[in-house]
C-alpha cells in the first residue's frame, strides 16, 4: 500500500502467480479492493482461494481482507533476499520514502535507516524535477544517460531545486546534463542514507524509482558498488509481504 501505487501480488508455493498495481488515489481502500479483484480475475481465482493475506506499506492499516501486516523494512528484506539470496543490503526508493535495510542470509531484517521526512530523498523529487524540466517522468532517466557535462546542483530541498532547474534552463545548460545533475543529486542523498547503515554486499535496489535507469546509474557511481535491480522492483515489498506467512514473520491481526 504505497503512497503512490497499490501493488498486489499472489504467491503460490513460492511462485509468483500474478501481480499488478494501481494508483492509490484519494481513496486507497477502494483502489486496493479493485486491483485485488482484478488480479484474482486474471488468474481465475476468488477471494476464498487465498489462504493468507499480508499487508505492508504506508497505508497497510487500510488494507481490506488482510490477515496480518508486516513493516515495509521487513518486507523489503524478505523480498530482496528471496530474489537474490546473496543480498545483505536492500535499498528501497519509493514515491515518498526511502530506506536502506540490512538482512541476513534468511532474509530477516537486522537493521534499517529510513527517510520519510523530506521529499528530496524520494521519487517525488524526480517527479517535480521532470515537471520543471518539462520532460516525461519515463524519459528523464534515459535522457540523463546522454549527458556530456557534469553539473552539480546546490539545492537540496525539492522546492529550491525546482528554481535551480529553471535557472539552469535559462543558463542554457542541456536538458540531458540537467537530468544527470538531478539524478546525481538524489543519488547522493540515498547514498548517505545507506552509508549510515553501512553497505554490505550484495546490494539490491528496489522500489518504483529503481525503474529509472538514470537514477540506478548515478547511485551505482556514487556508491561504487554494483546494484542488483529486479525486473519489477516496485513489487518487491508486496513479494516480501506475501512471503511473510511462509517465513512466519508476520504479526497476526
Amino acid at each position: 500500500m504505497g503512497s503512490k501505487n497499490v501493488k498486489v501480488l499472489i504467491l503460490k508455493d513460492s511462485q509468483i502467480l500474478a501481480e499488478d498495481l494501481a494508483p492509490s488515489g484519494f481513496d486507497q481502500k477502494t483502489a486496493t479492493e479493485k486491483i485485488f479483484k482484478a488480479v484474482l480475475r486474471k488468474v481465475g481465482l476468488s477471494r476464498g482461494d487465498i489462504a493468507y493475506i499480508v499487508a505492508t506499506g504506508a497505508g497497510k492499516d487500510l488494507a481490506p481482507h488482510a490477515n496480518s501486516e508486516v513493516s515495509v523494512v521487513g518486507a523489503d528484506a524478505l523480498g530482496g533476499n528471496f530474489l537474490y539470496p546473496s543480498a545483505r543490503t536492500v535499498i528501497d526508493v519509493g514515491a515518498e520514502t526511502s530506506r536502506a535495510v540490512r538482512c541476513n542470509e534468511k532474509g530477516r531484517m537486522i537493521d534499517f535507516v529510513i527517510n520519510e521526512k523530506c521529499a528530496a530523498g524520494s521519487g517525488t523529487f524526480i517527479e517535480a524535477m521532470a515537471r520543471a524540466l518539462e520532460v516525461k517522468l519515463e524519459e528523464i532517466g534515459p535522457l540523463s544517460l546522454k549527458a556530456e557535462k557534469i553539473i552539480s546542483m546546490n539545492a537540496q530541498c525539492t522546492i529550491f531545486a525546482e528554481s535551480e532547474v529553471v535557472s539552469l534552463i535559462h543558463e542554457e545548460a542541456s536538458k540531458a546534463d540537467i537530468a544527470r545533475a538531478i539524478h546525481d543529486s538524489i543519488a547522493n542523498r540515498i547514498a548517505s542514507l545507506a552509508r549510515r547503515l553501512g553497505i554490505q554486499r550484495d546490494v539490491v535496489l528496489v522500489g518504483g524509482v529503481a525503474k529509472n535507469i538514470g537514477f540506478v546509474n548515478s547511485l551505482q557511481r556514487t556508491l561504487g558498488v554494483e546494484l542488483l535491480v529486479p525486473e519489477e522492483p516496485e513489487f518487491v515489498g508486496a513479494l516480501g509481504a506475501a512471503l511473510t506467512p511462509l517465513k512466519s514473520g508476520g504479526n497476526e491481526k
Partner: protein
Amino acid sequence: MKEHWRWPEYRRTVPGKDWTRASIVTAGVDVGAVSSKAVIMTDGELYAYSIMRTGASSPDSANKAMNWALEGTRMKLGNVQYVVGTGYGRVNVPFANKAITEITCHARGANYIWGPTVRTILDMGGQDCKAIRCDEKGKVTNFLMNDKCAAGTGRGIEVIADLLSVPIEEVGPMSLSVEKEPEPVSSTCVVFAKSEAMELLRKGWPKEMVLAAYCSAMASRIAELLRRVGMERDFVITGGISKNVGIVKRLENIIGIEALPMKKEFDPIIAGAIGAGLFAKDFYEKE
C-alpha cells in the same frame, strides 16, 4: 491567472529630510534570494528605501532596487559616497564598494532599529531562516541558519498561498480567524505538507483551518532553530515572514517570549540593508 504569492513592492522617502544638507550619504543594498532592498542613509539615518522582487540576475536586481530608491529624491548614484552590498547576491552588486554577510548586517540593523537591548534576532527570509545572537553593540556572537530546506521560509508560505488562492498578505490574519486551533500538519517538508493540506481540503476543512494547521507546523519548525541557538531577550523579528501575524503569534506562543513590536518608520524587511548602510558610513569615515 492571479499570482497569490506576489507581495507588494514599494519605495518610500522619509518625509521632512533634505539630503543636500547631509555630510555623509551612504547606501546598503540587500540582494536576497526572493527580494532586493536598497536603503539610502544620510548621516547614518534612514532617508529612503525600496523593496522589490529579485529577478533572474542579481546585478540587474541591485541596479533596479537602487534606482528605485533614488527615484524622486533628485539624488544620483554619484551622490552616494559609499555602498555596502549584502544578502545572497552581495558580491553581485555592481556599484558596491564592499560586501558584508547579511547575518552581520541584520544584527547591526536590528541594533539600530530597536536599540542596544536586542540580543536575539530572527530573520525569516524568502529562502532561508536565521537565528542570530548579538551583543549590545549589534555584534554577532552566534547564529544558526537553515538554508537547506524550504520549511520555515517565505517560499513555504508562497506555496500554500498559491495552493489555497489566498493573497500572501492575508495568510496570517486568515489563519488566526479559526475558533479552535487545529493540530499542525504532520509533515515538515513543504512538498509533503502541501499534499497534506490538499488532503485536508478534500476532507472539507475550510481554508482558514488548513492555513492554521500549516502556519502552526511552520512556527514549530522555526522555534526549534531559536531553541538551538539559545534565546535571550530582547527578541526581534526581521525579514518578510515577520509580517505574517499567523506565524509570529504562534511562534511567540511556543517560545513564550513576545517579539518587540515593529517601529513605525521602518519596515522589518530592510533591517539587513540598514545594517549595510551603517557599515558603509563606518567604512567611509575610516577611509
